[in-house]
């Protein structure tokens, strides 16, 4: 990672849906080693901001740079390839797939170029290293005993842990976390924060969205409030 380049730079981002302004001139810079907390009421635009940074939405105005590279028009999979991990508020685990398979999707670290996609069709089996890492992650989130159970059979908390483990399996350096602690008890919230800190201490960075201001204050280096589309420092 280039030390000089900020991990994420959002410049003058604006987004509206059907004439309703959700983001208005949002500017944000995140350095390596930082965890930025963003709080705000429901509908304040927090998730929209993460969707723009991760490529799922295009801003009406402004641009996003990740480590100096302009990513505003890149598709989400190309942004993920820049070592960006995204945790969705509604988790989005692969419900019909088993715990093991959910984790393998992360541990295989598939890339999105045509060459990589074509090569994936020639692979006879999943790499053994990916299998071993999946097993290790399943043990860490205490789902190893249910390794072959489909994702739909789990509670919200277990699904959240699975989604987080799946995201971490790709070893991302930039984390975009939408309410990562919701529904988790203290023990598992600590596990998540510990992993988050490990990523950041290794030179990574994170955007952490939550409603719980105490949690955000406890874990984040800087905190912003998103209110009526504007980002204000807290």
């Amino acid at each position: 990672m280039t030390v000089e380049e900020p991990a994420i730079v959002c410049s003058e981002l604006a987004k509206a849906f059907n004439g309703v302004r959700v983001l208005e001139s949002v500017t944000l810079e995140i350095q390596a080693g930082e965890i930025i907390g963003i709080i705000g009421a429901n509908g304040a635009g927090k998730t929209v901001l993460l969707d723009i940074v991760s490529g799922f939405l295009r801003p009406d105005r402004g641009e996003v740079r990740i480590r100096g590279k302009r990513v505003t028009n890149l598709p989400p999979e190309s942004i993920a390839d820049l070592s960006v991990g995204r945790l969705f508020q509604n988790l989005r685990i692969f419900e019909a797939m088993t715990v093991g398979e959910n984790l393998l999707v992360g541990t295989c670290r598939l890339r999105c170029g045509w060459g990589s996609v074509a090569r994936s069709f020639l692979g006879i089996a999943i790499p053994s290293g990916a299998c071993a890492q999946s097993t290790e992650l399943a043990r860490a989130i205490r789902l190893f005993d249910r390794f072959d159970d489909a994702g739909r059979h789990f509670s919200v908390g277990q699904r959240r842990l699975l989604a987080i483990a799946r995201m971490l399996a790709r070893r991302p350096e930039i984390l975009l976390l939408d309410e990562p602690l919701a529904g988790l008890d203290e023990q598992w919230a600590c596990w998540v924060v510990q992993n988050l800190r490990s990523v950041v201490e290794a030179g990574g960075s994170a955007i952490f969205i939550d409603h719980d201001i105490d949690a955000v204050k406890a874990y984040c280096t800087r905190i912003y409030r998103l209110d009526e589309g504007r980002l204000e420092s807290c």
Partner: protein
Amino acid sequence: MNYLLHILVLLAIDVPLVLSLTLMAGYGGSLSVAHAAYFGVGGYFLAILTTRFGWTVAAALLLVPLTGAVLGAATGAAAARLRGDYFVLYTLGAQVLFVGFARNMIPVTGGPFGITEIPRPLYMGQPLYSLSGFALFAIIVALVCIGIIVLATLGPSGLAARAARADPMAALALGIAARKIRFLVVALSCAVAASSGALYATYFGFVGPDSFGVGKSILLVAAALLGGAGNVQRGALSACFVVVLPELLRFLQLPSQLAAEFRSMLFGLFLLLVLLARPGNALSQSRRRP
């Protein structure tokens, strides 16, 4: 014995064909009702290359999958943009277009009379007219096709395709190029279907528009769904069932004038009953947990 070998050849044609649709539906997330058309393109292409340009069957068989893949790539490009009902309608259009083309482009396809006298593959310089020899040849071609499908489903591509089908947004966030994967799955599926069509053409020595109509496509969809789209083993079992059942019904002592119609009706009725009894996963060992 010859009858059993004939069934074996039919299985060698239909098992990879059904599996190719299983691949497209289960891994590409795209249910095609034009699979008989891709099957037919392979058949016609081999027929034209061998009867008009003097190619050997072996040489034509090498080119046919590429043709299927190119056509599949066009479908795959649509599959990358169209989902669900829209993709089904798109493939229905492709199927109707194919049959119309085959029926009306007489200089190319022979029109309603089709193309006849398609040669058999050569073995030691002689056409392979022996049924046992042809069955062996067909099984080898089928095994290559099945191997390609299994390869695509077992490795990382299979995992990525299932993830992209299950939740495209989550897959994209994990760096999976969902559109590219779907595109390649559809192209591969069409290449295998075209190869099966080529095998069909050289076995029967004839191709015509009625062999590759919508009815055949619907039957293939039924077979793919019967096994539960996406499961290769059950897909193969389902293909065997679809080939063998009409043959078993031949042994019923039905009046000769009505035998074919009765067989079709009984087959349709049986399929309905099986699908109603085991919706979504007709040949599975056990029901899914609620």
